[in-house]
């Protein structure tokens, strides 16, 4: 497909488990972003990858959160030892160097 693809679309897991969320950006886009959207809240910036530069991790809420981007394409957001407050929609976006961000439809994460 031509858009940003995220998987899984829904994830339910028990408190304390680790989860991995995947993002496939639009082909050729150099920048990739992760955001979190809690119920009734706006999007909260988490992390930003631009080409080969060091990622901007300033939005990661704790050291339980990490992300990597392999080969400048696919990205994985990992949450270790999940807590109930981690329940949210996790959105990924990609863009060209100066272009607008295009979003995927998100992964809905529920921590029981």
């Amino acid at each position, binding site marked *: 497909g031509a858009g*940003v693809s995220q998987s899984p679309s829904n994830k339910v897991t028990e408190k304390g488990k680790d989860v991995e969320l995947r993002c496939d950006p639009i082909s050729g886009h150099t*920048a990739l*972003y992760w*955001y979190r959207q809690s119920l*009734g*809240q*706006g*999007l*909260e*910036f988490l992390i*930003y990858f*631009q080409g080969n530069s060091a990622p*901007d991790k*300033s*939005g990661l809420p704790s050291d339980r959160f990490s992300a990597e981007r392999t080969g400048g394409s696919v990205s994985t957001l990992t949450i270790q030892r999940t807590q109930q407050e981690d329940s949210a929609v996790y*959105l990924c*976006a990609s*863009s*060209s*160097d*100066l*272009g*607008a*961000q*295009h*979003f*995927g*439809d*998100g992964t809905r994460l529920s921590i029981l």
Partner: protein
Amino acid sequence: QKEVEQDPGPLSVPEGAIVSLNCTYSNSAFQYFMWYRQYSRKGPELLMYTYSSGNKEDGRFTAQVDKSSKYISLFIRDSQPSDSATYLCAFSPYSSASKIIFGSGTRLSIRP
């Protein structure tokens, strides 16, 4: 003071009405001003993007920026039921291809 303030609504108007959505911000470094539309269970999509103060029109949509008052607006003319969605204002100090600060969103419903 929050960096971005946006009335969450919900806002309900009859079809054909003019809709006005607004945000205020406090960060003088913001140079890029955006409006995103988000349908239920979908990712946000970019509607309007402006750099300077003044008005920008695109079809039924007009974006207005007043940097001196730190106030931005989105007007929707001849509103349609298909315009029913959550509208998020968004800001960046650098460009659209960088970390974006989002408002919490206004939920809009257009009554047929």
